[in-house]
């Protein structure tokens, strides 16, 4: 053992760290050598991804939409995609390499992940050139449209938290409370009459 206090564990080898440490940061730290073009990515996407995510990343059924939705973040029903919402391209590369295709993760080469990332940029109109090649060298020059729109947690400044006031106990409303919405109208709870194809889920 080599641990400082208890002498437990052993030193990780360089190969072991390389095998598991595959994370990529927005500044490009962790990017492997390699490259891939939009065209290569298109072919791969149709083979490996389109059955769930649609030919143009529009999503099949309830599977995630990957492209489009730009300018919808203040809509009643925003469409949050790589192009409309994600702040960093590094996350696209990292996540595909880490967890996709769903059910066959870690099956793509680094060049293939570059190519798929390039194709996703093309589908999201971040690059317009079908000949575009994404590589370790030019990766960090790409900025996604929504990068500036994330803020750190400021919930404590919301009025109901900032006040920390002793709450009202008596006659807190001028008039009796009225019911304004009922779950049974929607009837989407399992075991109720019709729980199929209900409203958009919050979890995926």
């Amino acid at each position, binding site marked *: 053992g080599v641990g400082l206090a208890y002498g437990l564990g052993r030193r990780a080898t360089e190969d072991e760290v390389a095998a598991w440490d595959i994370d990529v940061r927005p500044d490009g730290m962790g990017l492997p050598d390699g490259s891939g073009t939009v065209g290569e990515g298109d072919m791969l996407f149709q083979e490996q991804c389109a059955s769930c995510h649609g030919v143009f990343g529009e999503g099949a059924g309830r599977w995630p939409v990957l492209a489009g939705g730009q300018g919808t973040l203040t809509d009643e029903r925003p469409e949050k995609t790589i192009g409309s919402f994600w702040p960093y391209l590094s996350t696209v590369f990292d996540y595909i390499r880490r967890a996709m295709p769903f059910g066959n993760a870690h099956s793509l080469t680094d060049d293939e992940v570059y190519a798929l990332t390039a194709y996703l940029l093309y589908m999201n109109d971040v690059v317009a050139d079908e000949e575009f090649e994404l590589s370790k060298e030019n990766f960090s020059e790409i900025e996604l449209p929504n990068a500036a729109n994330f803020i750190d947690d400021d919930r404590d400044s919301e009025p109901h938290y900032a006040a920390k006031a002793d*709450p009202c106990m008596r006659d807190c409303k001028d008039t009796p409370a009225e019911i304004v919405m009922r779950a049974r109208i*929607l009837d989407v709870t399992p075991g109720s009459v019709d729980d199929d194809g209900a409203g958009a889920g919050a979890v995926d």
Partner: protein
Amino acid sequence: MGKGNGIDRRRLLTAGLAAGGAALAPRAVAGEGDPAILEVQDWTRYLGDGVQARPYGVPSEFEAHVVRRDVEWLTAATESSVNFTPIHELDGIITPNGLCFERHHAGIAEIDPADHRLMINGLVDQPLVFTMEDLKRLPRENRVYFLECAANSGMEWRGSQLNGAQYTHGMVHCVMYTGVPLRTILGEAGIKASGKWVLAEGADASVMTRSIPIEKAVDDCLVAFMMNGEALRPEQGYPLRLVVPGWEGNMWVKWLRRIEVGDLPWHQREETSKYTDLLPNGKARRFTWVMDVKSVITSPSPQMPISHGPGPLVISGLAWSGNGRITRVDVSLDGGRNWRRARIDGPSLPKALHRFYLDIDWDGRDLLLQSRAIDEDGFVQPSKEELRAVRGENSIYHNNGIQTWHVKPDGSSENVEVS
């Protein structure tokens, strides 16, 4: 076994219900008496199972309805989905291991602990690999904490949708973890001065990753291998999971295989695309880690109708806060116009579920039941209107607004919103 007697008992209960609120005092059974007493029951006459019939015991067959449930339309695949703890049927503050809600992103990894490794790398003096055997030789702690999914109650942002506390509030559980403080393990590797963040990573096919600031990592995070006294369940990360007290469940990485120390956050998929909270102006909050003060009445509730008619009624519920202990819970019977203080019973532990009760004499009329928790930092659980006024309806996560149940004269309840 015992089915006939079950029917007799149900008939008796039905008769009692039909009698309604006429009798508020204990009443004698009419006629010759209660067959449950007068007749010798099977379990009183015949032998039951011997000691080794149930080497690992399971609940009574009469509790078969107390199970985790899912909502199929929520997700595209059950392997990246969620189910819900039956909190409406439970009491106290500890969730039984087999009922703790599940949230996976690539299904349940089934890992032989002999093949499991924990790697520490990055900005450390020496990258290390631990076996499970190694980890179990380090000094350990026992702590009770709630784990709440960031998306708990998320389907209710636009209003009442799912009819039951299990579905509206059941992405939460609370168990006692046994594990090693993360600071001990990081100390073995030696954190460099430039190390400001850690990345926790799971071994399942989603290879789940989240960035955690070093202050939290060395404060109260645990690398846990036991829950409620036994090994973690596979669906809860067997053989190893991260415990991140008070913070959103996504960060409690299961099947934990790696901790990397870095100088900046990684902005992984689960902290950019997911677990960021969209605001009405189109901006999104990130790193919304703490689960705020929250409560819910678990009974009566839509899945727990009142079957006994008017008279004494136990209103039971749960309260919790990622900031620490719950100091007070108020309950309203009239949709938030008037409040009375509930009674917290059982252990009051920081960042753990708290059980509260309000014992009332129900007059059989409509109730608009609400609960409102206050934590030791002085934060008061807000109404849904207060939350929506600031956040709109598209935050998805962190909905800790006050829940209303409409209790009707027939004893049934419904998930409603009130003005």
